């Protein structure tokens, strides 16, 4: 723990503006989330993040890597996208047997060409281990959507992440890959149901709630820099965000909603509005209480917001189909 104390803390303040060089959108973690990251870093345990889609679970790791490593962050950020067929071994390394077999059968290759080392490809976990040197700021590993994998996967993963010596051996070459210090591991999950208890006990947890109005506004404004076309004025953005928030709450409170709107839909919606400029064409009006009023009271550009037929019908009515 003394070593972790001397290394940079995460404050969540490095990525407030769009970083064009790396195409990084701004990221605003809450105090609770920052604390959770610090706890994970201090205890050298993986941080299991949950939250609604679009709440920013997946982006945390990248933002964290950027804050810790600056412009060189891509060398220290590793992303492992889990699929239903993923095995723990895949994160460590892959050995291309078929390729080697083919090369072996080719009379033109020399002994040197077919050395086993040439066919080893480290997976994201293996790479994160390699990049974790003593005395250096840790690398960041994102394991995205762990709940997609089969039931044994989290426990198999634990064997590698849990040991005091974080290392594994590449059987085909005998080489040992060792992490001199623990990378920061961020794991995201969409569904709380299937993760085994033994795995959960080894993690620390955080649930990212849907952003508040102020958060949404901040995200929307910060993303303006990325909009290629006309910008929207601040006052209008505020009103649009308010409308969006109302819509979200309606959808959340209605148990028949198929898919709630999320932050990414908000940003898409603002972008489309910025492009078509309905406010300039008189399509949007301001009501008595200062709130935005849509034509016929129906949400504009609904195709960006509603991804399910039933949701569309319940918000726009049958006649809008």
């Amino acid at each position, binding site marked *: 723990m003394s070593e972790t104390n001397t290394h940079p803390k995460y404050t969540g303040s490095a990525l407030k503006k769009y970083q064009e060089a790396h195409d990084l959108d701004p990221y605003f973690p809450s105090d609770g989330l920052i604390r959770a990251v610090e706890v994970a870093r201090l205890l050298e345990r993986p941080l299991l993040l949950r939250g609604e889609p679009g709440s920013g679970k997946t982006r945390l790791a990248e933002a964290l890597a950027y804050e810790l490593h600056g412009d060189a962050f891509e060398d220290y950020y590793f992303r492992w996208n889990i699929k239903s067929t993923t095995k723990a071994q895949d994160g460590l390394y892959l050995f291309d047997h078929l390729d080697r077999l083919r090369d072996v059968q080719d009379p033109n290759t020399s002994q040197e060409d077919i050395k086993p080392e040439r066919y080893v490809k480290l997976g994201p976990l293996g790479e994160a281990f390699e990049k974790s040197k003593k005395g250096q700021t840790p690398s960041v590993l994102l394991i995205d959507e762990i709940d997609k994998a089969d039931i044994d996967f989290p426990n198999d993963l634990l064997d590698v992440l849990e040991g005091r010596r974080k290392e594994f051996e590449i059987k085909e070459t005998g080489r040992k890959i060792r992490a001199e210090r623990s990378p920061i591991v961020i794991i995201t999950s969409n569904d709380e149901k299937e993760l085994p*208890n033994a795995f959960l006990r080894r993690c620390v947890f955080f649930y990212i709630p849907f952003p508040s109005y102020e958060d949404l506004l901040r995200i929307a404004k910060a993303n303006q820099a990325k909009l290629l076309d006309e910008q929207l004025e601040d006052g209008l953005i505020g009103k649009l965000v308010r409308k969006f928030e109302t819509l979200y709450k309606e959808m959340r409170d209605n148990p028949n909603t198929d898919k709630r709107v999320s932050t990414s839909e908000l940003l898409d919606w603002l972008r489309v509005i910025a492009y078509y400029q309905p406010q300039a064409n008189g399509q949007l009006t301001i009501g008595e209480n200062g709130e935005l009023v849509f034509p016929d009271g129906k949400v504009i550009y609904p195709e960006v917001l509603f991804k399910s037929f039933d949701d569309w019908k319940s918000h726009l009515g049958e006649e809008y189909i």
Partner: protein
Amino acid sequence: MEKHRLPLYAFFDRLRRETGLELDMQQYFDFLKTFTAGYGGDDPETLLALCKIHWLPRPRYRKDFERLFWEEFEKLSALSTPGDRTERKDEPGEPERKQPAAPLSKSHKTQEQPPPPSVKETPPLPERKTPAPIDDQYEEILIQFREAASAESLRSSGERAADVLDNDFLFSDKYLSLSDRRLQQHWRYLRARAEKQPGARVDVPATVEAIACQGGFIEPVYQQEKVFRRQVMFLTDHGGSMAAFETMARHLMETTRESLQVRDAEQFYFHNFPSQRLFRNRLHTQSVPIGEFLRQIDGRNTLLLIISDAGAARGTVQQERINRTKDFLALIKAKSPNLLWLNPMPRVRWRNSSAGYISYFVPMLEASKSGLRKLPEVLKRL
């Protein structure tokens, strides 16, 4: 009278007992680490957030979690009075936050604070036995368990005795006499005996090897898929002489459930010996006739574990018990050979009791580290 010496342990304990959350002591120690490092902040909201980070793995338990937290927090605030505090620290409800650093530093080497001298001033053991004036206060007993790395433990056992008297105690149901990891190692052996069958996916490395041996490609080699023992049935004796082993039995079952990764684990209860019916719950309100129970046994795919002292606790030989048990075991063995009896009483106590006789009919193991060490051999002979 001493107050709670371990911050929020009462809350942690209630979480484990009253919600479905499965938490272990390591998670409590981790909390202590961050709490003493100051991550609990100055206000209860921040403290609650920190607790959630450590102890809330499943968001759906949030409401119960918060309710219990506030209940416990109210109690703590009510208990503390200004005069008792040695140091005024952050929360009003958290006196003596630094105290735990000493007793836990043994198992928890990275504590930042050095053992405060006030630990030596704690009253000696006899005084602590006076009953608590307030219902909410209770003595917490920390029994320190270490791995049986034998040489070290023998050497330091003298010191340990003294430590044990000085330190606080904390009753935990997870750490009675078995080590989780050791037990899981043994069960892993059982898992390896599961049948393998060729699956539907090609095993590329094996195919490549086959090609190398055969000189050409003839047919692919398929991956072996393990068929795990699908079903584990626990038959637990409870009540009466087994009351003292309640927590141990539960611990055994939980560990087995997890390490075998069974998809199907059922539990049945009986009292002293199984008779006409087995019960699905402790209150014996839901029962299953023996015939139906036997029908559920899936041959070699079922593993049956009986957890009972087999009369060893009572220490007498009861013919009826032996006969009825023997009959029952015969019925099971006809359906599946995978039958094991785990006895929480030490082996020496079996000899002149019913257990001694019963142990001739079924592999009976002592439910302790030394007993379970014999597990691999027993499993081989099944």
